[in-house]
């Protein structure tokens, strides 16, 4: 018995080390890609920042769809809430410190997450999807109606964020915005890695696989999902705020069904239920879209469609899921 507990504590520490190493690798990969983006594409930073903001939305979607199994086509409501929250704070209340704007965005996103969660979790499957669609349309209409606050369909302009910590101005090349975004992404990623592996994350995965079992274990399904929705709202809100800060404008498109659907497509493309999948899906989709739409602004949609079909046919678990499965198989063949 003593032996056993001894080896157990041993494995606890070695486990922890292995996990930390893996996380460190993940963070380093993101940072390396971030630096590579900065060095290799110094003229594309605006696009890269936009990818970063959307990546936060897709990560946030992964939390509820990938980890909890909630189907939603209305997740942009959380993103838009963050964007408008930060934008309105800056344009109407003079809160122009980027970190403060970010905080407002996170809070606005969390509240939107709570509301969405309460409504969406009422049903399952298709009706759930429809509830989420209803939410995004209502949010879109509400923002359109409240044009005094949101600028309506003309978009909310006049967002002039201060320099970050009073030092780094937002410049034409978008360098500050890019670094701000990458730092935000890395911090979020580290926090989310913790959360998805925590007991809470395990509970969520359990709920996705079998909510009846979770109830039979005395777990609260609804309460857990609502909490995850709030976290998801915070992440999406951060993405929205980043978008508002970096582009200095917020449009109704940030509260649109289109953006929600695109986010879902990116997530499934990358692979659900994995943070890496969410990131990979976002980068692949947006980069691909940018390249083909620049190459042929008139008919690129067909090529994107073909890409989606190809992914379903040849990488049914999503890009990351299929890659991981491939390496797992190879690893087993030659250990």
């Amino acid at each position, binding site marked *: 018995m003593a032996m*056993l*507990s001894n080896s*157990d*504590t041993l*494995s*606890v520490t070695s*486990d*922890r080390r292995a*996990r930390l190493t893996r996380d460190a690798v993940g963070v380093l990969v993101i940072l390396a890609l971030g630096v590579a983006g900065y060095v290799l594409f110094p003229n594309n930073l605006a696009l890269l920042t936009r990818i970063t903001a959307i990546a936060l939305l897709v990560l946030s979607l992964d939390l509820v769809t990938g980890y909890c199994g909630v189907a939603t086509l209305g997740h942009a409501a959380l993103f838009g809430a963050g964007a408008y929250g930060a934008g309105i704070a800056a344009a109407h209340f003079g809160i122009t410190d980027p970190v403060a704007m970010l905080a407002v965005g996170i809070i606005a996103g969390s509240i939107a997450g709570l509301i969405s969660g309460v409504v969406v979790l009422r049903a399952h499957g298709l009706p759930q999807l429809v509830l989420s669609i209803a939410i995004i349309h209502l949010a879109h209409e509400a923002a359109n109606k409240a044009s005094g606050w949101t600028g309506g369909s003309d978009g909310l302009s006049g967002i002039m964020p201060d320099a970050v910590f009073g030092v780094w101005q937002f410049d034409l090349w978008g360098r500050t915005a890019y670094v701000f975004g990458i730092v935000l992404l890395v911090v979020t990623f580290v926090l989310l890695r*913790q*959360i998805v*592996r*925590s*007991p*809470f*994350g*395990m*509970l969520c*995965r*359990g709920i996705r*696989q*079998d909510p*009846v*079992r979770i*109830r*039979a*274990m*005395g*777990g*609260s399904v609804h309460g*857990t999902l609502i*909490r995850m929705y709030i976290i998801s709202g915070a992440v999406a809100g951060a993405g929205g705020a980043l978008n508002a800060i970096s582009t200095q404008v917020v449009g109704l498109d940030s509260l649109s069904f289109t953006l929600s659907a695109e986010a879902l497509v990116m997530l499934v493309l990358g692979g659900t239920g994995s943070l890496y999948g969410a990131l990979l899906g976002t980068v692949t989709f947006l980069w691909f879209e940018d390249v083909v739409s620049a190459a042929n602004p008139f008919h690129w949609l067909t090529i994107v469609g073909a890409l989606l079909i190809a992914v379903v046919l040849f990488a049914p678990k999503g890009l990351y899921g299929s890659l991981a499965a491939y390496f797992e198989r190879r690893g087993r063949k030659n250990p």
Partner: protein
Amino acid sequence: MSAIFDVRNLKKTFGGLVVTNDVSLSMAPGDRVALIGPNGAGKTTFVNLVTGNILPNAGSVMLGGQDVTRLGPTERVRRGLVRSFQVTRLFSEMTPEEHVALAILQREGRSGKMFASHRAMPDVMEEGHTLLSRLGIAHLARHRVSEIAYGQQRLLELSLALALKPKVLLLDEPAAGVPQSDTARIEQAIADLPSDLAVLMIEHDMDLVFRFAKRVVVLAAGEIIFDGSPDAVTKDVRVRQAYLGSYADARSVA
């Protein structure tokens, strides 16, 4: 000894159909009771009523002296009424270690923790490991459930229930679908259940029933027609009638 589990006059109708009529059943800590009955006797409905998945039209369910009739399933689990499933319900993408850890954390109200890992909690890891060892599946602790054999999944199902430290345990055909070679393991595990635990087992396999139960309850057509010792049950006229009758019915249908 006072009853830990006490069901009084439970009644449930679906539309005009009475599926459970005036069922009463009481158990004390340490009781080993088997619930048997022909197909369609209302056993499943009874389990669902007891666990709180459906609400009765009349009657009450008492747990440790408290009325839990109106409480939901989660709340009943938290008060010590735990069930296992006839067909395993496990998380196919998770490992036994994670399953058991989740159950332990759930029991202790720590499952909402966000910034910690169960692997960094020595107490949880040790309790989980002990539990899995006791059921002989510790060596599988880090395999995915989808990769382990069905008999071992049944054992995990059982260990999940135990990890919740129940006061009353409902075992729904714990050996169903298990290959012959593994039944002994499961029976052993059941025999080793804590002695102060009240266990109600729903089972078809009469051999298992006779080895396990000190008391047998027979449910037929939604009513309890027998409640007594295993010896007496085979001799009871109404029980024979219920079983043979249904056998005859089954013949005529086929």
